[in-house]
């Protein structure tokens, strides 16, 4: 029973804490959708895959969203035709490489500036490398959830024709509800219309506000539900697995890194505040382990995995997870075993 009590407190606190950041992310993505000429913005990104990944990583500096908010923005970027390196670079780097998070990390570790610097450097490197890996796939659509892919502008590389395979509950495709209760499967013509609604040139500000409202509610529903599930899972694991077990392995240079990577993936704390959380382990855990937590957590955790699965197919999510996980291990193990 006390477990339930503290679990509930934990769950609600995660939700209440993350809600404003989620709303902020959704709003940024909505504004990006409706008020910014993304085509022109996206056109400004370099075509070179490595440079694209680099600039995508740095793009987060303009949009201080944490990992609850970066998925909607990344999804929007993809739909608008941003290249994979740009979108992936943004997706992975934005939660860490932005002024809010850097400031928060700095205020948590004022006497360990190396933590701040290395966090930024590692996140940047990992985001760029994963972005570069994804750049090998000229046409990303096979790796995206069908509804996202459907909204993407056709890419020149996609010429292989295959018939659609809609499946059960996760039925692919986008519906355009033109009359209440009369959904019409989206055909090519409608897609054009939908994009027309979203295109900034043709609507006045006044017309766009209802669309912003609509978009915000849609995204809050999807992301909010996932946030609930993610927070629930994080809570259950935190309450049922004694932290002592995690702490007990915190001293070894190798186990501590693994422990903190797993903790970072499980605990699903918003990246704007996770530095403060990591500080509670600063004395017992190796600095490599702290870095692993700070680098891996914002890029990939249970909560954001749910969000990622709404954009990418499981296979792509697995690639992102595996490469981010392994790169984090490589960097932080080197710190622990060679430098620290």
């Amino acid at each position: 029973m006390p477990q339930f009590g503290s679990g509930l407190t934990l769950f609600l606190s995660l939700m209440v804490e993350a809600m404003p950041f989620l709303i902020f992310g959704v709003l940024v993505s909505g504004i990006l959708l409706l008020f910014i000429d993304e085509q022109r913005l996206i056109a400004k990104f370099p075509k070179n895959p490595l440079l694209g990944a680099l600039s995508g990583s740095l793009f987060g500096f303009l949009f201080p969203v944490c990992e609850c908010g970066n998925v909607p923005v990344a999804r929007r970027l993809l739909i608008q035709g941003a290249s994979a390196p740009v979108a992936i670079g943004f997706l992975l780097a934005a939660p860490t490489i932005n002024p809010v998070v850097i400031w928060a990390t700095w205020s948590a570790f004022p006497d360990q500036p190396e933590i701040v610097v290395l966090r930024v450097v590692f996140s940047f490197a990992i985001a760029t490398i994963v972005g570069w890996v994804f750049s090998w796939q000229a046409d990303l659509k096979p790796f995206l959830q069908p509804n996202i892919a459907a909204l993407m502008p056709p890419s020149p590389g996609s010429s292989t024709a295959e018939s659609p395979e809609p499946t059960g509950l996760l039925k692919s495709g986008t519906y355009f509800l033109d009359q209440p209760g009369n959904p019409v499967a989206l055909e090519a013509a409608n897609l054009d219309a939908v994009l027309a609604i979203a295109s900034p040139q043709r609507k006045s500000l006044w017309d766009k506000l209802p669309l912003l409202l609509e978009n915000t509610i849609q995204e809050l529903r999807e992301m909010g539900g996932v946030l609930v599930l993610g927070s629930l899972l994080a809570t259950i694991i935190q309450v049922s697995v004694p932290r002592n077990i995690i702490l007990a392995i915190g001293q070894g240079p190798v186990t501590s890194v693994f422990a903190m990577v797993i903790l970072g993936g499980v605990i699903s704390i918003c990246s704007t505040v996770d530095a403060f959380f990591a500080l509670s382990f600063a004395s017992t855990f190796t600095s490599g382990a702290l870095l692993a937590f700070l680098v891996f957590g914002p890029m990939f955790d249970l909560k954001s995995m749910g969000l990622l699965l709404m954009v990418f197919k499981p296979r792509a999510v697995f690639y992102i997870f595996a490469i981010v996980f392994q790169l984090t291990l490589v960097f932080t193990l080197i710190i622990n075993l060679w430098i620290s």
Partner: protein
Amino acid sequence: MTAKRLRTKLFPYLPEGLVTLALGLWGTLILHYWRSGKLGLLIHPNYYGLTLAAGYFLLMLTVLQILKLWRRRLPMRAQHLSLLSPPVMSSIMLVAALIGLLVTPRPFTSQTAIQRGLQDTTLVTRARPQAFRTTSNPEKRTLLEWIRTLDVYPEPDAYAGQKVNVDGFVVYPEDLPDNYFTLTRFVISCCAADAYPVGLPVKLEGNRKTYAVDSWQAIQGEMMTETLNGQRQLVIQAKALKPIPEPDNPYYY
């Protein structure tokens, strides 16, 4: 697929109504916590403003959405079918908000304190150390300030005989004899998820059973050095204990 279409046809307002209700309830929940003073149990006061803004924003969204539905305008927009169907997503949020509204969150207890490593003596607080001052009034230090002071300069003898005046809740650590308990507080830096316990052992005249686990006590006494579990450490020699009600905001920051 046809069933799905049918359902949407039969309850055209269901998905929209559900999400509106869910978001509205979340807004209500946040404002409810704020008004009942329970928000402090969940998050650091620094984030009150942000969270309140989120609460008001959600309510505003709800009002706008109701207005729109009132005018019988269902969205003329592309809907993304996602991981789970929209009504399921809305219901998840709805249930979570209802639980939050119906069950009052409770502050963490001794059990959580032990689970989160209260006894781990090698654990240093994350709290930023404060300058070591011998001259500051020791009886004005809070439990956290004692821990911070010890963090900077851990020699227990340096504090021997200083007056102590602290409050917190009672934890019985397994590794202390039964005339000791640990007076404990939780410290949070952003939300309850990162709460960690700080505490000092209190030496009692008699058995600790007089003071129930999780009861809040205000303790007056003196600092002394004791060797517990083979380590010299700072212990509060209690002179007077007074039960106090649990404070509205039980955390330190």
